[in-house]
Every structure is written in structure tokens, then in C-alpha cells.
């Protein structure tokens, strides 16, 4: 059987090479696609070809990210636009079925977490160690590159990280969002005993709070617009939470944050995990003079900032984009329980056959989801 031309073309646009032969795996290689005009659909793709530096992974768990919802509903994040049908997915873990001829770091049967950003290793950024900034990175599930939301995927072996036997695939699929948080936290370096603010109690805010707490930051205050998200934070052991009202201005919000944390504990770092202009402004006013706002959250391409308020008090904004060198450390921290009960971030799980339901759950407010995952046996 051969690969239909249309499908081959669709796959090629996203960097998946076919040779015309329709290979089959043990089960159909179902994949989840998004279109330029905001539709999601499932379509089977051929079993992947294993290049000499790649491995074939049976994807056993994948988390859904807010960015995927955004690509679906709006078709773009900043300058990154969906211009052709795209297979989504970048938070995955699975089992190696096949290794390429050059591969030395893993073998068939190894259980791995997938690092989705495949960098070039030749550009200035890569060579200096900041491969998260590689301008030609192929990032799974981000236009133009196809992602990991298929049953079987080929991925470069150097981006596959072994997970211990004690770690489930669901946990392995958490390493990516935890890496975003760990990467952000390492850019701000919260210290033992340092008071810290986390704006936003979504999956990234909660993950950032877990990492900050693991670093010994204390006290940690978490804010959100939604009570249900703060309840989730409370379940994770974060007692200092503040429900922000949209009616409050930045002064009211920052004062309430400082009151809650106490006069001796003005936050020195704010992990801004919402991307919302009002929250960023509040964070700027809430942090101590000389403090840092660590911008993780993604939002509108352009916002207004109270720059003179920042200048007069030497408040800095440091941005964080994705992660570098985090997988081995985060795997170790998660496995050794240093990150607490990070599993609790997973609120819903669906089998691969129900992937459309999984996406619907993400956009259904009543479901109160934090991290929704797709699992395949």
C-alpha cells in the first residue's frame, strides 16, 4: 500500500519524511491535526521511518498545552501562525520501539521522556549553550513542525531522556511543562527563604510554585482570577492564595498581595504566569524595590508597562523562553519527590481514541481542568 500524495505532502510540510510506502505498526498510527481555519481532526498517518540518528517511540502519554488550544482557536501565537495542517503535541513520553544506526544513548525498550525542541547545534546560540534560542529550532507541534500527538513518532535520539522504572509515562509527559517552570525558576534563581509571588494558578503557575517551593522559597503567594484554580493550589499545599478581582487596579492588587504576605516578606521575585497586562502591572508594583518579575506567561504581542515605576525602583523584567538542559535535573527532582506531588497537576486522562474529548475538556470551564493527558497502552 502507498501513502496518498495529499497526505505525503501534508506530512512533508511539517518535516515528516515519507518514501511512499505505507508502513504499519501494531496499531493504527492515529494522529491529531489542527487546521488554519480552526478545526481539529483525527487522521491516520504511516508508521514513521527511523533515520540513523532517530528512534521510533510508541507515545504512551501526552499532555495538552494551552498553546495548542490557542493554535486551534486563534491560529497563531505572535508571529507563529498555522499555515498548513499541523499535527499537535509536545508534552510526551513513551517507549522506544526502534533505534537508528548511529544511536548510542538509548536502546529498544527504554522508557523515555521526549524533549520537543530540536536545535541545530551549529549556531551561535546553540554553541553557547542557549539552544532554546536556536533560530532554526524544530519544535514539535509548533508551526511548521509536526508534533507528538500520534501513536508512533520518530524523534532524534539526543532529545530522548530515559526515565526511571519508578516513573510512569504520565509523569514522563509532565517533564516538559515542569521544565518550562524549572527553566523560568532557574532564570530568576529563587533562594532558600526568599519571599516569592506567583501570578496565575494554571498548570505553569502551579508548576512554577512547585519549583519555587522545592528551591525553599518562602513564603509563596499565588494569585488567580478563578477560585477553582486557587483550590487546586491549596490542594498542592499552597496556603497563601489571593483571588484577584478584575475591578481592582494595580495598586489595590499589589497592596493586597503585600498585606497577605506580611510587611517582613515583600516578594523579591514574581513569576508572572498569566501574560495578562493587568497582572504584569500588579506584579511590578508588588515586588520589592530592586526585585524581579520573571515573565513566563504568554499573552498579547504588545502591552503597556509602567516603565517609570519600574525605573524608579530598579524593578527588572526577565523573560524566560522554554528551557535548556532541564530534562535530567527535572526527572531526578520529580523521581526523588523533591517537587512534591506534581502528579496532582494531572486532572483528566483520556485514551488516544478519545483525544477530541480531551481537547473539549480543556475548553470547558466547568471541567476545571489543569493538565489533561492522553494515554495509550
Amino acid at each position, binding site marked *: 500500500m502507498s501513502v496518498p500524495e495529499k497526505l505525503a505532502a501534508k506530512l512533508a510540510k511539517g518535516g515528516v519524511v515519507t518514501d511512499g510506502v505505507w508502513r504499519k505498526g501494531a496499531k493504527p498510527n492515529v494522529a491529531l491535526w489542527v487546521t488554519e481555519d480552526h478545526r481539529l481532526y483525527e487522521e491516520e498517518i504511516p508508521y514513521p521511518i527511523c533515520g540513523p540518528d532517530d528512534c521510533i517511540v510508541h507515545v504512551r502519554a501526552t499532555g495538552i498545552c494551552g498553546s495548542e488550544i490557542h493554535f486551534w482557536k486563534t491560529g497563531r501565537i505572535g508571529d507563529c501562525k498555522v499555515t498548513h495542517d499541523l499535527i499537535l503535541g509536545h508534552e510526551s513520553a513513551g517507549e522506544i520501539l526502534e533505534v537508528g544506526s548511529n544511536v548510542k544513548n538509548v536502546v529498544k525498550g527504554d522508557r523515555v521522556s521526549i524533549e520537543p525542541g530540536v536545535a541545530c547545534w551549529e549556531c551561535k546560540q546553540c554553541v553557547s549553550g542557549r539552544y532554546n534560542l536556536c533560530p532554526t529550532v524544530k519544535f514539535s507541534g509548533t508551526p511548521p513542525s509536526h508534533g507528538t500527538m500520534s501513536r508512533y513518532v520518530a524523534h532524534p535520539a539526543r532529545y530522548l531522556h530515559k526515565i526511571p522504572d519508578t516513573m510512569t509515562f504520565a509523569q514522563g509527559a509532565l517533564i516538559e511543562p515542569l521544565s518550562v517552570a*524549572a527553566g523560568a*525558576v*532557574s532564570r530568576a*534563581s*529563587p*533562594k*532558600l*527563604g*526568599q519571599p516569592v509571588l506567583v501570578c496565575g494558578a494554571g498548570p505553569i503557575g502551579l508548576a512554577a510554585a512547585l*519549583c519555587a517551593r*522545592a*528551591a*525553599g522559597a*518562602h*513564603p509563596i503567594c499565588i494569585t488567580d482570577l478563578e477560585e477553582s484554580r486557587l483550590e487546586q493550589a491549596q490542594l498542592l499545599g499552597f496556603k497563601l492564595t489571593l483571588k484577584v478581582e478584575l475591578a481592582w487596579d494595580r495598586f489595590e492588587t499589589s497592596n493586597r498581595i503585600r498585606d497577605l504576605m506580611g510587611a*517582613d*516578606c515583600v516578594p523579591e521575585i514574581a513569576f508572572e504566569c498569566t501574560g495578562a497586562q493587568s497582572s504584569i502591572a500588579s506584579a511590578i508594583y508588588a515586588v520589592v524595590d530592586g526585585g524581579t518579575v520573571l515573565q513566563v506567561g504568554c499573552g498579547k504581542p504588545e502591552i503597556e508597562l509602567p516603565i517609570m515605576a519600574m525605573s524608579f525602583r530598579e524593578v527588572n523584567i526577565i523573560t524566560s523562553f522554554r528551557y535548556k538542559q532541564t530534562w535530567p*535535573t*527535572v526527572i*531526578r*527532582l520529580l523521581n*526523588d519527590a*523533591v517537587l512534591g506531588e506534581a502528579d496532582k497537576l494531572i486532572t483528566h486522562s483520556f485514551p488516544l481514541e478519545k483525544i477530541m474529548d480531551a481537547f473539549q475538556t480543556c475548553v470547558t470551564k466547568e471541567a476545571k481542568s489543569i493538565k489533561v493527558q492522553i494515554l495509550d497502552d
Partner: protein
Amino acid sequence: MVTQNPDIYDPRKILQHSEFKVLSAGEKTDSDANIAAFYNPAHEIHLVQKPKPKPGPGQVLLHVRATGICGSDVHFWRHGGIGTMIVTDECGSGHESAGEVVELGEGVTEWKVGDRVAMEVGIPCSQPSCTPCRTGKYNGCPDVVFFSTPPYHGTLTRWHVHPEQWLHRLPDNLSFEEGALCEPLAVALAGIDRSGLRLGDPLLICGAGPIGLVSLLAARAAGAEPIVITDLFQSRLDFAKKLVPGVHTVLVERELSPEQQAAKIKAVAGGELKLSLECTGVESSISTAIFSVQFGGRVFVIGVGKSEQKFPFMHLSANEIDLKFQYRYADQYPKAIRLVAAGLINLKPLVTHRFALEEAVSAFHVAADPAQGAIKVQIQD
């Protein structure tokens, strides 16, 4: 001299006071007598009786309720000096203290009688003309009055006058015992602050004495992982494992070279070590730490030791390893209290022996004898 502190706390005023007397062994005293444990240049340790002081302006009188014995106290007693700090006369011991406010001096508004406090005993000059004080590094003040560093008398006593600004309120859920332990914790926290320890960093701690153990508790709270700890004594390693079950222990073998020791440590760590907190001050241990860390790693020395030491220069150079030091602490007490009160650091298991103030001499002998297996010996009144 730009502050009055050296004059206010001049030890000669006590030593030359008519009520000052060295007590003989077993000599009985009243229950509110101002007794204290002193040592002298002849390496004698004994109780003395001092006059009960009155708080001056900006000072409070404290009833000292708990004081831990530090290795430096033992060292001043037995060896008469550390570095350039030499015992030249009778000198009071003790600097790890917590107590209760019993009387206020003129102009004191911060405290009231009954307040429970941890005592920060390094009193800097705080003058604008002093660069360390002016730039936030008051631990470097050359005119500091540090109670228990000769010649200034320490806080291992019953009644002690202290500047009101250098006391830290103890929350209700912290005992005096824990308040007194905030001093060694402040040492560890200052070291961790400047060591650059980060979440997920693989860490080696050299030495499982009180400073090594407090550093272990703090490093675990800061998310170091994995953590390897070394010591000459298995009993101390066992204690470390009880404190922090996930720690990996390595017994130091005297016959092994530092390179060989380092190879063992690296094998136990299962990977490269980024940082070492060196809590012994011993030359061979520092060398071991240097050989244990990765290219670009850091050895951070909290421990105090011999004045002159040798180090593996070429290994440091060829591996871009930093060798960094910590001296006392600055601005660590509020954080120490906060971390203990919130339960991030549990100091309670560290006190292994408790003595009444009248038994302070026995306490010192226990602290000085490794066979007794003491971790932190405290005097409690």
C-alpha cells in the same frame, strides 16, 4: 573609634569589678546569680560570678534561656586562639543564645518585658564611614563587638545586656532551644546564599558536625539533589541519614588520598557534582572537595581551620573551579527564624545534650570529647 560599643562592652569593666570572682569547682551560688562559663590563657575552664548588669540607653537586659556550645568556644578554651583572635585574659564563652527580655533601658520602644528573642551577637559599628557596614556586609566590620570572641565576653551566662536592635523576635512556636540554634543556622544560610546553590544542584557536604548537619538541612530545603555527605565518623553519618533520609553518606578513610576519596564520592553521587559546602576546614577535606567537583564547579568553605594550608593549584586552575569563603553572616536571622517557624528546616533533633547553667563546665567537657557523640550541647536556664 567611631562607636561607643567597644567602650560599652569593655570586658575589663567586668573583670575589674569587685563582684567578679572565679568560682571553685562545686562552689554553690544563688539561683539568680549571674554565673557564666569562662576560659583563660592557661586553658582552664570554670564558672565565674559577675555583677548583674543594668541596661543602658538602647539596651535590654536578657535572661539567657538557652546557649549552644560551638566548636570555636571549645577551641578558644583548649588552644587559646583562632587565627588572630587570641585569648589574653579571662573570657566568657558562648554566642549561640536565645532568651527573654526582663528589663528595658532608656528609649527602648521595640521590645517589652517578656518578649522572647534570638540574640544576634555580632554588633557592628553601623557607621557610614565603615565600608562593610555601609555596603550591607556588616559581618566584615573591623570594629565589630562579637560576644565570645576575645576579649569580649560571651552570652553563656544568666543575665546579659544586649543592644535592642540586634535581637530578633521568636514566634510562639519556636522554643528557646531552637532560637539558640538560629545562630549556627545563620552561618549555614549565609554560606548557602553566597555559594550559589540552586534547585537540582548535585551537592557534596564535607563534614557531618553541627555546621555540616545544619547545612544539610538547609541544602535539602533549597532543593539540592543528590546530596552526598562525608565524615570521619560513621556515627555522625548515621545521624545525618536520620535527619535527611535521602542523603548519600561516604565514610572518609584516612589512608586514601584526596583524589581517591573524591573518586569514591563521585561514584556514590552517580554523576558530576556542581558544588561542595566544605564544613570541616581541614586541608585534606578541602582538597577532596576540590577533586570532587566538575569543571566550572565551586568549593565553598564554611569550615574554619589551620591558618596556613596547601591546596591543589593546578587542578583548580585547569578545571576553572572556584574556591570561596564565608565569614559569619549578615542579615540571615529573620530568614532563619522564618524557615524554622514554617517547618522548612527542623532543628529539634540537633540538640543531643542539655545541661543546667551550673553544670556548664561538664557541658564543655562533653562537647570537647568526640567519644560522647554529642552534636549540639546546650546550656539551658
